């Protein structure tokens, strides 16, 4: 099968999910990844890979098995169309999606059970054939509440999975894992083994007994070669050969075995033969060249590594007539493309030669055969006559799916047929004459992206290939799986094409649209139009009517031509400042919030403050030699002479009061909130307060008020306006408190009129605090020296950020920043702080 194009119109516009299959494609933060689109059953590979990285194996198991009842089998033998679709294929090889599935299934496949689903419907359904298509449909229908009877001609469930895949690829017992899990999940499924259609039961009986019938009879019979001597007993068919071996036989081989064909059955047959007693050489004869051979590359390379010879461009024309048995062959060359687009092999005249071999295994295709169906006129040649759009046959009660109806394919494709059939049969039983067309549903589990620093450099870690092993006839398994560490490293390689990255401008949708545009032929106007319509849909209002003002929505206007930028290699940019009370700050920040912290933490805070050259605002001083702005709750606290300043706080709102000092020359401050500004500022200026703490996040005397939410930025706007109105802007310093998170925030607040900014919660995080309830808890995971270092580094980072903002704006001192250096990008913020919206010069009027 050729690789499906995962960048086609389905991706642009997957259409509405069918009823009962609501999926996540309409979520704007999700686009199914190429691997998921390539998977016929839409396996959410990015999620299970991310779960593996997180070590959440049960969650990975859920993601794997959600649409795949044969996950243990697929972990080993899926043809994995996801892997060539993986975008990392183009870089250093795809993520090992298949084997990582096996890693999970090996851990949990045997034991992990899914909750049983009860029978809720009266209708019963017959399914003929228990291959991947039939059993997938059985599970889907049983999960929908129906009673399902599975009629299987052999003595084992599994169809070609059981009878066609040799044990060195799929060890005995793996199929049972999946089947047992399914039967445990679906008590409504009843298998009838050894019951063949036409021999043990007729279609009419099934129709009479059940409300609907699904024919998943498989392409069970190998096609022969129509050549003279093709009926020789030394010429056998590939699937029949595999069936015998899977039944337990180990026939003795002649020294040389010939296998005709280039598909997956040919690969299995040649590799089986190589392992059987007596066999020394196996030659595969394929009529086209190496780039045309349809076998899955892994299987082909496996065969070659096991010593099997592949002879290309060769076509048998009869059995050999010389002394040794074998095939009479001709050489071929590729001619014109035929109907299916593949170049037809042409025989080269005069090239006849014999290829000796004691056994010829013919693997040139399979067919469905069923006398019972043929009698009803339900066969079209080698297939059950069916319509893929509705999985229907001519008989309204009878549906068909899988290889038997649509030709030989893969397990995962057969499973997708099973899902389709279950969907259309349920619609039929629900009385829906014209259901929405089925499409593969695409889910995501929104697993966070693996935070692995080595994701870019980890190479694909392929599992060791064991080949024939020490005792080939025992069919030891050819491949291993990962251990926990290597599975994690491999899973980390996933690009997460399904998920948002850090940019809101290039969302996952935008990026994937661009990817599709880049893979659409310019003249393919239909796809161009589909993409155009998709792009027209645009985005939602990123802010919306209830959006609040935030510091993030202020930007600085850089210097360019109309003023000079400050070259950091040339000019210094000052960030320090002085506060009343003789407090010098090396950067315009004052730390707060640690009054009630354990002594060890306080020690760290003190160390950080000293190292950074800033000050502390609070009821308690973290260390003796730290400049201290003492918070005194009016009527409760006692001023300390050691404090550089006494900051009076009134947690219950402003009322005039008599300020207190511990010494006559002590500076005094007043902490004031937005609603009290009009009353408090004239009072403070009148009483010669030296400083105002503008409380945008609540009362500074309380514990961590900033954690409660967003600061109210209008406090700084209003405070400056009141002081300007009084023409007393310079008469008190302004210390802003509320939600400062970065040096950029500090620079913005200074531009808006603050002299310095209080840093509380941000320091809590920087010092390793964990938020619990409404405050920080500190644990003994780091020492106070480490805390001091972290705090000092964080403050240094704030300084570097504030200074870079000033320099970009063309200022050599952060305190020269002014409101005119700012623009807002949202109306809410423009109004709250009183600066124009970017691109304009006017402050927007208040909202209506």
């Amino acid at each position, binding site marked *: 099968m050729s690789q499906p194009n995962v960048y086609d119109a389905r991706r642009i516009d997957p259409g509405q999910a069918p009823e009962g299959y609501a999926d996540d494609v309409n979520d704007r933060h999700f686009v199914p990844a190429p691997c998921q689109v390539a998977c016929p059953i839409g396996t959410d590979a990015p999620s299970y890979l991310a779960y593996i990285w997180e070590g959440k194996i049960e969650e990975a198991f859920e993601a794997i098995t959600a649409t795949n009842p044969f996950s243990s089998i697929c972990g080993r033998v899926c043809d994995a169309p996801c892997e060539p679709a993986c975008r990392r294929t183009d*870089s250093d090889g795809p993520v090992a999606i298949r084997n990582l599935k096996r890693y999970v299934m090996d851990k949990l496949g045997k034991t992990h059970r899914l909750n049983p689903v009860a029978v809720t419907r009266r209708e019963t359904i017959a399914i003929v054939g228990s291959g991947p298509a039939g059993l997938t449909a059985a599970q889907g229908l049983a999960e929908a509440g129906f009673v399902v009877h599975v009629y299987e001609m052999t003595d084992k469930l599994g169809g070609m999975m059981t009878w066609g895949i040799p044990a060195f690829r799929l060890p005995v017992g793996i199929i049972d894992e999946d089947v047992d899990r399914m039967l445990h999940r679906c008590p409504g499924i009843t298998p009838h083994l050894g019951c063949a259609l036409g021999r043990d039961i007729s279609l009419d009986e099934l129709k009479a007994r059940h409300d609907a019938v699904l024919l998943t009879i498989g392409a069970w019979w190998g096609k022969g070669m129509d050549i003279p001597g093709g009926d020789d007993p030394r010429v056998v068919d590939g699937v029949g050969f595999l069936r015998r071996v899977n039944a337990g036989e180990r026939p003795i081989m002649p020294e040389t075995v010939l296998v005709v064909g280039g598909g997956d059955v040919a690969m299995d047959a040649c590799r089986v033969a190589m392992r059987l007693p007596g066999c020394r050489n196996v030659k595969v004869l394929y009529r086209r060249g190496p780039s045309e051979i349809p076998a899955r590359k892994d299987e082909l390379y496996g065969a070659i590594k096991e010593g099997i010879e592949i002879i290309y461009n060769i076509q048998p024309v009869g059995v050999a007539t010389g002394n040794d048995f074998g095939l009479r062959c001709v050489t071929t060359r590729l001619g014109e493309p035929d109907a299916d687009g593949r170049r037809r092999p042409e025989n080269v005249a005069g090239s006849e030669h014999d290829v000796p071999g004691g056994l010829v295994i013919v693997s040139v295709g399979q067919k469905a055969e069923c006398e019972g169906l043929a009698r009803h006129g339900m066969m079209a040649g080698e297939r059950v006559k069916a319509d893929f759009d509705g999985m229907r046959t001519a008989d309204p009660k009878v549906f068909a799916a899988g290889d038997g109806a649509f030709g030989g394919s893969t397990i995962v494709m057969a499973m997708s047929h099973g899902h389709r059939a279950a969907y259309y049969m349920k619609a039929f039983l629900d009385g829906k004459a014209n259901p929405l067309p089925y499409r593969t549903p695409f889910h995501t589990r929104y697993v966070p992206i693996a935070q692995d*620093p080595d994701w*870019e450099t980890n190479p694909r870690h392929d599992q060791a290939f064991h080949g024939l092993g020490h005792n080939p006839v025992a069919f030891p398994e050819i491949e291993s799986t990962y251990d926990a560490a290597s599975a994690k490293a491999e899973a980390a390689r996933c690009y997460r*094409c399904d998920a*948002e*990255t*850090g940019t809101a*401008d*290039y969302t996952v949708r935008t*990026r994937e649209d661009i990817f599709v*545009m*880049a*893979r659409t032929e*310019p003249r393919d106007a239909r796809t*161009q*139009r589909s993409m*155009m319509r998709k*792009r*027209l*849909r645009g985005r939602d*209002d*990123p*802010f919306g009517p209830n959006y609040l003002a935030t510091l*993030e929505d202020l*930007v*600085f*206007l*850089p210097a*360019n*031509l*109309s*003023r*000079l*930028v400050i*070259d950091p*290699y*040339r000019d210094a940019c000052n960030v320090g400042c002085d506060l009343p009370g003789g407090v010098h700050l090396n950067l315009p920040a004052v730390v707060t919030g640690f009054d009630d912290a354990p002594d060890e933490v306080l020690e760290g805070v003190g160390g950080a403050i000293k190292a950074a050259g800033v000050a502390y605002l609070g009821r308690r001083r973290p260390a003796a030699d730290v400049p201290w702005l003492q918070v005194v709750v009016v009527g409760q606290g006692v001023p300390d002479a050691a404090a550089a300043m006494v900051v009076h706080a009134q947690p219950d709102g402003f009322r005039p009061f008599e300020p207190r000092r511990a010494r006559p020359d002590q500076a005094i401050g007043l902490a004031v909130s937005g609603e009290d500004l009009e009353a408090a500022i004239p009072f403070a200026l009148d009483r010669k307060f030296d400083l105002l703490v503008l409380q945008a996040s609540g009362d500074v005397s309380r514990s961590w008020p*900033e954690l409660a939410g*967003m600061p109210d930025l209008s406090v700084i706007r209003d405070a400056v306006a009141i002081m300007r109105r009084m023409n007393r802007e310079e008469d008190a310093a302004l210390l802003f408190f509320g939600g400062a*998170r970065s040096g*950029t925030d500090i620079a*913005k607040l200074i531009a808006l009129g603050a002299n310095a900014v209080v840093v509380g*919660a*941000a320091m809590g*995080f*920087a010092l390793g605090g964990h938020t619990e309830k409404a405050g920080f808890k500190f644990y003994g995971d780091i020492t106070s020296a480490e805390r001091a270092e972290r705090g000092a*580094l*964080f403050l240094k*980072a704030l300084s570097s*950020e504030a200074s*870079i*903002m000033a320099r*970009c*704006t063309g200022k050599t001192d952060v305190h020269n920043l002014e409101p005119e250096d700012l*623009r807002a*990008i949202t*109306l809410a913020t423009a109004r709250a702080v009183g600066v124009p*919206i*970017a*691109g304009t010069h006017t402050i927007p009027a208040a909202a209506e």
Partner: protein
Amino acid sequence: MASIDLAVVPVRAANERLRQLGAAGEDIEILNPDARHHIGVGLVHPVTVHIRGSAGYFCAGLTDGPRFVVDNNVGWGLADNMLKGSIVVNGNASAIAGVAIRGAEVIVKGNMGSRAGQVMKAGTLACAGNANFMAGYMMYGGRIVILGDSGDKVGQDMTGGTIYVGGRIVALGTDAKVTDLSSADDDELRAFLDRYELPFRGTFQKIVNAGKNLRYGKTEPRVRVIPYFEASEANGYWNTKVREDIEVKAQIGRYRIRGYGAARPLPHISDLAFRTDLTAIPADPSVVDKVRMRTLLGGRSGAKPLDLSMPVMIAPMSYGALSKSAKVALAHASRLSDTSENTGEGGLSNEQREAAKQIIYQCLSGRLGWNIHDMHRANGLEIYISQGAKPGLGGQLMAKKVTKEIARIRGIPEGIDLRSPSRHPDVLGADDLVIKVEEFREATGYRIPVSVKLGAGRVRDDIKIAYKDGFDFVELDGLQGSTGAAGNEVLEFVGIPTLSAIQEAIDALSEIGAADKLPIVLMGGVKDGIDAAKVLALGATATAVGTSAIIAGGCIACLQCHVGNCVTGIATQDPVHERRYNVPVEAQNIHRYLEAVRWQLASVAHAHGYADVRQFKREDLVALTPEAAAITRLPYDPSLRERDRGGR
């Protein structure tokens, strides 16, 4: 010896004549130079030019090979970017003598002004007198010889090279130190001086880079970025992104660095809609032939304009930030779609030149890769003032990305942490810029358009200056513009959105009656042909795609461009990673993306009944958000969002 008398011949004609005489191998004397600017710029033949008097700015600038002699003094920018050859000034030189030289020998027999040898890369700058402050400022290589006193802050932030001082070292600059002088150094130096008849009896002190500021202390922990939050979502003020940011800064003590542009939600072009209902556009494969899209850009002052098959160009991105493979794929795609490529800061490689049909060649503050020969083989010259991602800051390229070849193209030592100054050595204001533009035009015979790249800030003022300075067009880059590495805070919080930028630019040009006279190429977050159409309707002449083109060519937007390990081979110089990039395949992908843009742009125009994309106008648009309406003054009509979502 031929004579040119500047009392009668204008400088432009004189420079043309100089080049003719130079090509003929004839020596020349310049009479009555009268301190004119740009004397001899662009000369690339090894002839002798004797200037009988004083020369003005950029004397002998952008040259390769000639031997100049100046009888008296010179203005600033002496021997700007001179590759080989020599100049002997018998008098004094003004500021930035020997700026950005790449091998020339520059001799000043008198004193020289400040910042002599700024960003020079190779060659010798020798001064018999004293130097003013910051001699050797940010020099990358070569040597400066000062026989007199050094001036203040000598060797300020020099990266490489050597400064020899015969007189007093007034004060060392940041990150410079005095080191031992070997006798071999001394002998070689004196032999050089003898050659130029500059006898020196004293002793030299040798100054080199001290190596303290070249690298960051702790490396930033490598992380995969946390997916963005929507502004309107209640993710909490102290959300995981904020906490991660604080955590990292508490480890490294400085601002963080990443790739890409502003990552948070901003008002954008996507917040506009066309009044015309586009949901029923037909699937017309030949619509691109029904709308005239060809755009000539840059002919305003008589230069040969860029000839673009549509008004969509490739945005400037450097070879250095990107791998050569990625640059070649972009260049090839630009050829396939018949538009233009842009070198960005990294200089012009032969492969890029060959792959692109038309390429704009950028000149940045560090003058990395800048030289007269590549100017001649470019189709456009561009002075970079700033970019939307990091206006106000110079570029940085970490040592990991400074490979042998990149070092060669940029003219710097291999394996250094490469920093550029935040502003041009010779552009301190609008008037300087006029003279700089003229230097480029003189050097290239006025044949090549000269544009300016501006990150959007005080656009209203800046765009008027750009117009008055005579640029042929402006590449205007909004806050959404991306980069290979910049401080996160600058990426997010310095500059104004692309939408605001174009509005201010158009308003400003209208204010001075220059609407339609200065073409604007708007960039920064343009993603498709619909965006391109909106940009044209807003008044831009063209647009450029950078990030989108990179995504079309395989970028997965992990924002880790600065690390240098790019998983797709785009933003890396690691040969193992670069091998992952399949140039022919990705060139086709980028080309198909550009063709999809073309199809969309044509379809939008055709749906409006326009036969030419220049017919788009403001009135074609409405705003879908209050912010977009406030910025553009377009009517607010959010109902059209639902209309545009109806089409299936």
